[in-house]
Structure formats: C-alpha cells, structure tokens
C-alpha cells in the first residue's frame, strides 16, 4: 500500500465522518450542544440538499441562534456563489432584531466572502454602509468587527469617528491605543496633530507607545523620537520603537542614536540587544562605517552575560564581515 493510497483512504474516512457530523448537525431530535459539537466536523456544506437545509436554518428564527451562526459558517462557499444570498446576508446583518450571535456569524462569513467572491464586489458599498450603522449600535462585540473591517478599508466615516474619540474620550468607540492602531491603516494628515498631542499628554502608556510609533514619518517629530530613544527613564520598548521610527525620517541620525544606546552599559541588556538587532537590519548601505563601534560589538559577544545581546552581537559582526 503506497503513501498515496493511505492518504486517499484517510480522505474517504474523513468524508464519511463529515457526512455523519452533518446529519447530526441538522437533526432536530438531537440536543443543541451535540449539534454544535458536530458543527466543527461538518466542513463547508457541499451537497445541494445540505446547502438548502443550511439556508433554511439561518432563516428560521425558531432555531437556537448559535446553530444558525454555525450554519452560516458551513455556507461560506454557497454564499460566495450566490449573489442573492449575499444581499440577504447583508440585510440580516443590518437587522437589529436578529440575535447578535447570528449577526457576528454573518459578519465573519461576509468578510470572508468579500475576500473571495467575484459576486460580492457590487454589494461592497451596501456592506460597508451596514458596518457604519453597526459602529453606532450599542453592541460592543459586533462593533469591534465593524470597526476593524471599516478601518482596514480606509473608510472615511470611521476615520472621522476614531479621531473624534481620541479628541473627545466620551465619544470614543474603543480604547485610544486601539483607535491609533486602526487609524494607522490609512493615516491621514489630520491625525498627526492628534498623535503629537497624545505623546505630549497621553491618556495611558499604551496610547503614547502607539502614537510615537506612528509619528515615524512625521519630520517634525524626529527630535521627539530621538529624545525618547535616548531617555534612560523611558520604558525600554518605547525607546526602541522610537529608534525604529527615527530610521524612517532620519536614518543617519537613527544609526548614531542606536549605536549610542548599544554602547550604554547602564542600559537594559534586552534594549541593547533590540537596538543591535535594528542596526543589523536597518543600517542603510551608505551609512558611515564606525570601526570603533564595530570593534566594540565584536568584543561584546564574549563579554556579556546576556544571551540576547550576545546573539545579536554575533549576528551584527557576521553581517558586517559579509
């Protein structure tokens, strides 16, 4: 028996188990928890009959919402192939009388569909409109999905709402650090002054971190990034990300700053290792060679008791030697 025959036999076994699980999932006589457990082994529904039963379950408000959500998951391929079903799914997603469990299931399936269905593109404006509506609903879990997907699409409305939330916390749709991460998908000029204000007066440490990270291409913020990278009182992670950011706006200054931190033996060894990692990977090809610094790093591997620092010293030296 060849490996191929074994694999074909195993595939056939999976097909049989999938059919059994699907039968159990659709069996109204079975306990809901059993049917939900079976859902994870159904795969996507393939036969016309199972697809029909799946849609019937989604449409039937008498069914447990969790079963309806699980049915949506099995209908991902069918959804992609039937434009009318996409419109129907968007309508159900918009319907605030439907249970949140079903709407979350629909949202994940639709996002998948907009990744992979040619039928879906004409429905995209309608989909984004429903997501905007959801952003303003008082359903925090559903809102999380809508915010993520709208921000990835660079949606103007959600950009405005996120900036509004950063300026006026009582209007915020999410935590400030998450808002900055979402805005960073498509960072408009009007967000930059807001980020500068957050660095100057951060609502929390995480939002300062994210604001600094995203000021990398803001030439006006380069002195701030340099100052933070060299500030021994600052959190090591924030010092490092500031140095990485500086490589975007002023690479030669960034090289000098980063070397300085590596040579600072009073600094945290993990930070020095991270800075050396950054020098190894981001030093521009035309950067001025500093033989004294390279010599210092070459000796560092044998001197330091920090494993990460020794590892990065070894890599840096090996790269410098070509």
């Amino acid at each position, binding site marked *: 028996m060849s490996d*191929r025959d074994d*694999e074909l036999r*195993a*595939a056939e076994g*999976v*097909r049989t188990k*999938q059919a059994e699980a699907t039968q159990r999932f659709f069996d109204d006589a079975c306990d809901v928890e059993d049917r939900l457990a079976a859902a*994870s082994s159904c*795969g*996507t529904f*393939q*036969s016309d009959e199972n697809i029909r039963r799946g849609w019937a379950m989604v449409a039937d408000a008498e069914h447990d*919402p969790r079963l309806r959500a699980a049915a949506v*998951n099995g209908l*991902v391929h069918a959804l*992609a192939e039937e434009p009318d079903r996409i419109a129907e799914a968007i309508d159900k997603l918009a319907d605030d009388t439907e249970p*949140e*469990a079903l709407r979350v299931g629909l949202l*994940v399936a639709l*996002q*998948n*569909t907009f*990744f*992979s*269905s*040619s039928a*879906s*593109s004409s429905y995209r404006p309608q989909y984004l409109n429903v997501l905007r509506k959801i952003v303003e609903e008082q*359903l925090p*879990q559903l809102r*999380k999905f809508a915010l*993520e997907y709208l921000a*990835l*699409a660079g949606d103007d409305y959600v950009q405005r709402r996120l900036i509004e939330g950063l300026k006026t916390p009582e209007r915020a749709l999410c935590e400030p*650090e998450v808002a900055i*991460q979402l805005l*960073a*998908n*498509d960072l408009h000029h009007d967000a930059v002054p807001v980020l500068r204000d957050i660095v100057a007066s951060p609502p929390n440490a*995480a939002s300062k971190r*994210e604001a600094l*990270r*995203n*000021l*990398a*291409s803001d030439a006006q913020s380069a002195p701030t990034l340099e100052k933070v990278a060299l500030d021994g009182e600052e959190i090591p992670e924030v010092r*490092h*990300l500031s140095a*990485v*950011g500086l490589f*975007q706006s002023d690479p030669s200054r960034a090289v000098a700053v980063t070397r300085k931190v590596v040579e600072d033996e009073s600094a945290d060894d993990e930070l020095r290792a*991270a800075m050396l*990692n*950054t020098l190894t*990977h981001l030093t521009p*090809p035309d950067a001025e060679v500093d033989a004294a610094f390279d010599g210092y790093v070459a000796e560092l591997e044998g001197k330091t008791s920090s494993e*990460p620092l020794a*590892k*990065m010293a070894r*890599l840096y030296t090996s790269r410098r030697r070509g």
Partner: protein
Amino acid sequence: MPIEMEINGSTAPRSAYVTWASSACAITQTENEELTVTLRNEPEPGGGRVRFRASAADDYADELTVTLPAGGRVAFQIAGRFGSPSTRDRDTAIVVVDDAGNERHRKPLMVRIRKNANHLTEDERDRFLSAMVRLNTVGVGGLIPFLDVQNMHTAQADPEIHQRPSFLPWHRAYVLDLERRLQAIDASVTLPYWRFDQPNPFVFDRDFMGVPTDSGELDFTATNPLINWVSRVAGSGNPRIRRYNFLVIFGPPGTDPQIRPFDPATARAVAVSNGQLDTVNLGADPVTGDHAFDRFRQMEGDPHGAAHVSFFGQISSAATAPADPLFFLLHCNVDRLWARWQWLHDGYGGPRAYELVGQGDRVPTVPRLGDFADDTMWPWNQDRQPPRPNTAPGGAFPPGVVSAPRPTPTVGEMLDFQGELDPASDLGFGYDDVEIDHGGQP
C-alpha cells in the same frame, strides 16, 4: 581542477540547490585517460540526502558508478531523497571516489525544501525572518524590494488575483517570486508553511510570528528581526503588525456573545472549517466522487479566506494582508494543499487539472483575461492596461536555479511544479510532505 561537477547546468555554488525533482548534473574530467568513479552522498549529521541515476530511464539509487572518458563529460541526475531535506546551507555533499577508494572531488549542496513552519529549527526560522526583513529594508539606490511584493496584492489588484480560476496558479507564482527574492539574499532560505488546521506553538511565539498584546499589536523578543518590520501599504502609518486572534464565544440563548483571544499555539485557526483532508475532498463531485480543479478551487473560501479572517488586523483584508508576514506562510500552505491535491489526483495537466485550456489574453470575445492556461500573468507580463491593475511594475520573473518558469510566466506553467509530466517544467520548489513520482524513488 581535474574533476568538476555541474548541478542544474552550472559548477557555481549558487546552483547547488535541489528538491525532490530530478536535477540535471554532469561530471567532467580533464585528465588524459579514462577514469571510473563512484558518486556517493555524504551528508553532515542531520543533513539532506540525495540519490543518483544515470538517466530518466533508470531507477534512483544511493550511488552511481560512471566511467569518464579522457577529458570527457558524463551526464547524470540527482534528486533529494524524500523525507531527508537539508536544514542548513550545503549540509550535504556528493563525493567522487575512484576505484582505489581515493576521494577525487567533493561537491557541497543543499536539499532545499519548503517545510512546516512549526517544525523549523531555530536557525532556519531566524534565517527566514532575517531575509524577510532585509527584503523589506531600504537597500542600494534607496529601493525597497518588498514594495513590489506588497503592490502586487492591493485593493486594485484584487479582481485580477482573487475570485477566479487563476487564483491558485497566480498565488503559486506570487509566493515563488517572493521566495526567489529571499533566496537572492540568503540562498538557504525557503518559504515555510503555516498548517492553519493545526496548533502551532513554535510559530505563534514571540521569537517567530509574535504574540498579540491586549490591544492587538504583536509582541516580539528583542532578537526577533520582525521588531524592525515596516508596513508598506500605501498611505499607512507605521503600525506594528496588528493580529488579534479572536474567538467568538456564544453563551446560552439570550446572552451576548463574547470575543476572546484564541491561542493559535494550541488551536487551529478558528474560522477554518475545512481541515487538510476536507480540503482535498473539496475537489470531489458530491455525487460521482470524480475529482476536478474547478471544484477544488472552492478552497479559496474555506480554508483560504477563513484562515485570513480568523484574525483582526492586516491579514484579514486582501489589500493589506502582505503587511503581515504570516500572510506568506498562509499562502504557502494554500499552495501546499493544492500540491497535495495534485499529487493525490494526478492534477498536473489537462482539463481536469485546470479547466480553462487555451488562451484568453486580449482575445476580444473572451472576457476572462488572465484565466486561461496559456495566458500570461500580471504583473510579470507588464500588462497594465485596464482591466488589469497598474499598482506593480512587473518585469521578468526572478530567476532561480531551474529554468522554469519563463520570464513572463503563463497560468499553465504553474501546474506541473515538480516536472512530473515534463522535467523542464520544474519550478524549483517542493514540500516536505508532497512526494514526486519518478522511477525508483522510495
């Protein structure tokens, strides 16, 4: 040098990389008398292994004896031994031994195979990550080579590369393009794959693909090259990769669902319904059981799309996904699943392997530009006229150690990737769990 050995048509070390497919080799001697030698494989401990045969008509064996005419050359073939890939550059060698047992020549090489990311050595992982970051760094002349890779997979490119039969062939070319760019930086690197239907504790770790913080951006160790990763999505700020692994927990009816992080180190990607064998089975007609590509390609929805949307973050949208390096591991696995389906169902050529035979390129009556087997693919064909996108410059496909694909590859050139039907079709990559059928191979 009295004896020289060519692998993949060259004596240069840069050509000495093989896969499970047959590689054309030759041995040459400059001495003036006939010489009989035996070729053997001597791997370092844990190194890759190769086998030998005189020609395509022979079975592969552990050694090969050849008689070299005076000043002459003898051709032969080698192939990596399935199950024994290399872990390091040049960790194996072909030694040439004469009748008296003297070693006359030694040729280091590597059995370079794509592997499950969860089973890489730490060294393999670090070399891959470092090459990725170097590709995405400002290089000589201010160019960022990765920018082209990002710009091939944009919102504008979406209709060209998704939602159509050429989805799998196009993405095979795309990840091979990336892999060859990485190999130009470090020849020992291959693209690993993420088995999204399995837990991956090694992958979802701070030393590799990172672990999300509470707010969703990734945390890495100080030594992980990805601490230097920069998003190249047009218009984006400078975000750290955002990848929040979400799990929707449905409580009893009447209670609100909750979103919690799931741990891909201990669970499969949550939105994926089709495991590996479920995916292979997608190719089967539900009634007849006959397999065909036009059914198999449903996998673009689940597991492919489902793996993408198992996370919040860049990876969950086609336009931004390349900003997360996990995207390339995901697509390597999508390609591997296709390769496994091809292996199981002889899907390397003909209408069953790809339904759109012929050419549609710029044929006015054929609306499916770029979908037919003989169509050239954007952007390598530099066709930027609508309806094709213009976000990437295109140009010749990056060269590899094998001659395929041509600089302007067609959809059809992506099918016979290990040269099962025609050795000249070998694209120069293989997977650690996808075999090849050639005579004598165990």
